[in-house]
């Protein structure tokens, strides 16, 4: 196996692209920020050598818009476009299947795979049954760490249930786009800091204490529903 013994960190961005993300500026901000995020990550040699990035977009359905990739192999970041509902369940189900396939593939190539880290971003309440897929994901051996970010109409309690590390919601519904810009900046910092500290099987996901325009919300155990 060519990569036997090499370590790799997997990062997944799950982006809401439901119809409401257009009017509130979320779509525009994500599409503006993704190339910046790419440039930031590609300029860090440790991130380039040791991490992989995948992006999933969801509305009615979910789709992998960037397969798990080394950042320097990405010539052009994908974009998102407003479309339909906010089906968390579809996103989480695809995320679970994608992580399962990615981790299995990386392990089969000989990589030592750290537990994946997910950045979940949404502007609305879920419009489908998401708890079943979520429980399935958390019971999987490859279950990821999750950071959740909500803007506009996102429900803090729901995001607190989805996150396993930390959840944030925007403090001003009218400034969803600006809040998402802060979120994207925090994602870049988290990826860089986490990659630089990952060593010998131990990784501390560098969770931001504060995100500009966002406030932290308490995590909620799904079992307490």
């Amino acid at each position: 196996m060519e990569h036997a013994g090499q370590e790799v960190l997997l990062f997944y961005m799950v982006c809401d692209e439901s119809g409401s993300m257009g009017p509130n500026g979320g779509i525009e901000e994500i599409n503006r920020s993704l190339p910046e995020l790419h440039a930031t990550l590609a300029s860090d040699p440790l991130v380039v050598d040791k991490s992989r990035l995948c992006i999933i977009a969801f509305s009615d359905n979910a789709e992998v818009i960037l397969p798990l990739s080394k950042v320097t192999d990405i010539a052009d970041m994908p974009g998102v476009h407003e479309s339909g509902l906010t089906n968390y369940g579809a996103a989480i189900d695809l995320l679970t299947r994608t992580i399962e396939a990615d981790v299995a593939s990386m392990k089969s190539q000989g990589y030592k795979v750290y537990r994946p880290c997910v950045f979940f971003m949404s502007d609305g309440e879920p419009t489908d049954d998401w708890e079943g897929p979520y429980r399935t994901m958390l019971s999987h051996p490859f279950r990821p760490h999750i950071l959740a970010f909500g803007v506009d109409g996102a429900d803090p309690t729901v995001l607190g249930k989805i996150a396993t590390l930390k959840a944030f919601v925007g403090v001003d519904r009218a400034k969803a786009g600006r809040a998402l810009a802060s979120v994207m900046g925090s994602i870049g910092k988290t990826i860089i800091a986490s990659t630089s500290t990952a060593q010998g099987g131990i990784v501390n996901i560098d969770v931001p204490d504060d995100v500009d325009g966002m406030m932290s919300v308490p995590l909620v155990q799904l079992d307490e529903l």
Partner: protein
Amino acid sequence: MGLLRGRRHHHDDLAGKLRPNGGQDPLIGMPPTPDPEPEEKIDAASHSSNNWTTGHLYGEKTTFGKAPWWTSKGWWKASGDHEAHDIRAHVGTVADLAVAACSLRGNRHRTTGDPNQDSFSIALATNEDGAPTHIVACVCDGMGSAEHSAFGARLASIAVATRLAESVHGDVNALFVDLSTHQKRFIDRITELVLDSCGSVPGSPPKGTRLQDLQTTLTFAIVEATEPLHARAALVGSIGDSPLFVLRSGELELIAAGKDAEDAVFSTATSGLLGATAMSLATVSLAPGDGLVLTSDGVGGFVVHNGQPTALGRDLGQQWRQPVGLLDFVIDLSFEMASADDDRTAVVIWSRNQETWPQ
């Protein structure tokens, strides 16, 4: 929440574009594509250029292997530490033993301008006539989360090697029993020495530095340096995750510490020397021609995977079948492998094989 279904992306196509010659992993229907820069093995002889920063390549080329260290990108930063130790190396013989030791600053610390946080120490025990009886080798890997771990590792390795060299007399089995019985006292003494050095040694952190800010792993070996006809005994010990191997017939056999992810995902905890209450101890028999290899996990963590040697492990085993030249040893440790960005240290002690070694 949205109600409209619109066009998929703001770009012309439907997904992010990968570079045409990129090394995309074969995932989810994506066929593997060739790396833009083909794999190569760098011959030691090619290192006459001052461009040299990496050794043999395993897998894809890394950022650090693609450009000289003085690139304007500034990802190879000078350290303000008094002893950054980009390279520290030592070789020598004692009776029928040969020892090579080397420590290299890893890519992670190159990017941050921090010093090498690994350290090694070699000490000799002598008899009443001053003749060497044992060689003591010690490898310490300062913990990344500890602010002054470079200093902690350096002081701890010296303190442990010195103390063990003073303690071993005759058969290492006697020291094994003694250390097993009094290991906490031994560790407490080392911890005390390291803490007391703060503020009193040039370049040290201030007096009162907390133990956790100096924390380090420990792996050591004590090998009889007499000239036995058959096997000789070695005492090995460890606290934490710095792996130790026996080198036999060109193969590395893991005998202590290390980690090898067999769980669903890769995760282990590392314990430290300072303040510990116990250590792992064992005795090993070395036949003529065998070697003992002490490493930090920046090396040892990449030579075995799922119980099998990696390509690097196989190469190092073969390369170190018998002692190698000083620069060759440095180059061996300068292997290029993505994600192997930690500091790297290895100490190899070879037991002479009378039949194959030059007289």
